[in-house]
């Protein structure tokens, strides 16, 4: 089979028959609704999420802090230093994604009955494109490790699916940035996972409190 022929029909297949996130989550909701009655499920689950210490809401808020940090970083990068057109386009693309992650996580936290954390005040030490890219690489690699470290503790299968959809995009950002810095886009066969404390320690220098 010609690979050019392969690409289109198979990707169309993903669109039509694949588990879209929406369908996946809706199926979960319908299954749960059949078991418990739709009206009873939502308050039960959101209550369980809100009350469990170190539960999904904490993880979502942890992710939200990182996404706020990344979004602010890319915004500042575009405003503060002169970037080549390739890097500028990439920074713009990634900032848009991080903004979408912030919005999605905020909604999820509210929907689960939690309180979204506020955007942290931030400060980033870079003065040129090279410094910007170096820091971008650190943020994206750390972001991947943070999600991968937190994900196994996620209780809700739907929150997990969404975290997975986000972390793959963070990994794609990391690879794209690494191509700009001239480093291997995938330096290891397995991405490391980091515990929350280690991640917070890594990003602490950029948060002004």
């Amino acid at each position, binding site marked *: 089979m010609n690979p050019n022929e392969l690409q289109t029909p198979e990707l169309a297949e993903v669109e039509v028959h694949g588990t879209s996130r929406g369908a996946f989550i809706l199926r979960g909701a319908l299954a749960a609704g059949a078991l418990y009655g739709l009206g009873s499920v*939502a308050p039960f689950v959101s209550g369980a999420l809100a009350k469990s210490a170190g539960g999904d809401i904490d993880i979502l808020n942890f992710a939200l802090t990182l996404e706020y940090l990344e979004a602010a970083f890319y915004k500042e990068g575009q405003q503060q230093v002169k970037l080549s057109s390739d890097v500028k386009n990439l920074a713009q693309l990634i900032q848009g994604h991080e903004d979408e992650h912030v919005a999605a996580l905020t909604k999820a936290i509210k929907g689960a009955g939690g309180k979204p954390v506020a955007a942290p005040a931030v400060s980033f030490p870079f003065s040129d494109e090279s410094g910007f890219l170096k820091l971008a690489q650190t943020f994206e690699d750390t972001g991947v490790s943070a999600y991968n470290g937190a994900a196994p503790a996620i209780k809700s299968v739907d929150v997990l699916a969404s975290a997975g959809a986000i972390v*793959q995009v963070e990994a794609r950002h990391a690879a794209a940035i690494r191509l700009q810095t001239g480093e291997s886009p995938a330096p290891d066969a397995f991405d490391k996972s980091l515990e929350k404390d280690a991640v917070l320690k890594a990003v602490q220098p950029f948060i002004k409190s």
Partner: protein
Amino acid sequence: MTPEIHDPTSETEAPPTGALSRLAADPVSRKRFLTMAGGGGAAAFLAACGSGGSSSTTSTTATMPASAANDVSQFGKGDVGIVNYALTLEYLETAFYQDVVNSGLFKGSSLATIKQFGEEEAEHVQALTAAVKKLGGTPAPQPKAKFPLKDANSVLKLAATVENLGAAAYLGQAGAIQSPEILASALAIHTVEGRHAAALNTLLGESPTPDGAFAKPAEAATVLKAVKPFIVG
């Protein structure tokens, strides 16, 4: 490196605590929660993430029976089936990169990148094989594969297709994995597949993130159908 499947989690800086260790000690807790899925947080995430343009497919796929969502049972029960499914894909990717390296179509830094990606897929094969054994299952056999290798550009396109599909395949299984340890390992591989895909897309002059801010999952049936033309005998 001789990867054990639990390596990624063992590389964390602190021992697992709290919810993670409770989950590890209680492998059925995720399964239990799965039956309760669909609550407030999930509904909000549906609303928040659904803006990516996939909502139009909801009415088609939501009516499918739940069993059709997971076609990996042919590879074994539960996590064994999922890991063997992943192993089959990794075998194909490894064979593909090996054939590409041998084809002589690439030189210099492109060849180095292809070699590295291939070596990483081979590490995934080793890790997943060990995981199946650890779960008490029999590792899936290496499929016999053949790939069309005409010219550098079409090979790169095929590589990108395979990697994007591979990343989507892992994402499609994440929620079905019962063991937190297997989940951690699958995620550690999943993001590497995403990195490969993004790098290949970039080399082809395409977006590193074709799905936008939220990567889309692919069902096993879709993935297996896509790779079927490359499996011979």
